[in-house]
């Protein structure tokens, strides 16, 4: 199972539409400070169900929407589509947000609730997926957890 492509629209600094195919092996994302690299990690975490404002580095849901620039207008909604491939099976997870509708999730075109997403992720063997999402400056944090916290994070993988 791997991420075949990520499509972003109006998500954080990614105004307009963007389409990123990923390698099933190693993809490196490089670029100057403030260019948008960590925003790509945020998009991947968000579409896979991440809900913590701290992890997403926002203080209001509104801050997920492209705020606009001198030349481009702000987005009214944001839309992230993840295409996952497992040998010949392909499935998509999609998440949109707008202030009117709130956040809406889809799996292969069907609307689902957030709690249904856990089941979908287990089917795709992505159960512990946010386990292996390490935010900037957090790599040493994995060893600074208290023993019980560490145990609980590990148990969810099995």
């Amino acid at each position, binding site marked *: *199972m*791997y*991420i075949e492509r990520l499509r972003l629209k109006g998500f954080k*600094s*990614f*105004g*307009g539409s*963007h389409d*990123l195919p*990923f*390698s099933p*092996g*190693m*993809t*490196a*994302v*490089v*670029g*100057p400070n*403030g*260019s*948008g*690299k*960590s925003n*790509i*990690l945020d998009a*991947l*975490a968000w579409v896979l169900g991440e809900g913590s404002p701290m992890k997403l580095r926002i203080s209001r849901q509104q801050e997920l929407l492209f*705020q606009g*620039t*001198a*030349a*481009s207008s702000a987005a009214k909604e944001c839309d992230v589509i993840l295409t996952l491939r497992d040998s010949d099976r392909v499935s998509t997870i999609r998440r949109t947000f707008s202030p009117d509708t709130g956040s809406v999730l889809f799996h292969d075109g069907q609307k689902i609730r957030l709690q249904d997403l856990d089941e979908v992720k287990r089917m795709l*063997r*992505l159960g*512990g*997926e946010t*386990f*292996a*999402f*390490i*935010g*900037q*400056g*957090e*790599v*040493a*944090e*994995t*060893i*600074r957890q208290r*023993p*019980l*916290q*560490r*145990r609980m994070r*590990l*148990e969810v*993988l*099995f």
Partner: protein
Amino acid sequence: VGTLFGNALTDIAARFSDLFRHLLGGGEARLELLEGDSFWDSGVDIVARPPGKKMQSLAQLSGGEQSLTGISLLFACMEVAAVPLAVLDEVDAALDEYNLLRFAALAREYATRLQLIVMTHRRATMERADVLYGVTMSEPGLSQVVGINLEDWR
């Protein structure tokens, strides 16, 4: 402890110890299951000793040693739990040139079994990727992603 988790923990501990020794060129690392009176005082403790040094608390490890210990534990868990993908945002920032090369080689090796997406400023890591994306601001405030041809770049 449930046998499923108990067995997995033994496997994780074995891989963690191997990866730690591989990344730091020696030393030892262990996972210890603390069995308290109740569920709430039990947990998983980490013991890590860099090569040639005495046993000490995790807080005494240097910044780079903490990163390497965290990376070893992460890769050990991903392998044993068959986690198919990882997204790592500048996990190589605190590493010296020598440890950076060991990390980049490890990432290259693991990328044959699982998908890795890494954000980085370090050249040694970029050079070992299959696909390289450059993120820039096409106008201030608007991100743009362009594929970089690795052959040209190397």
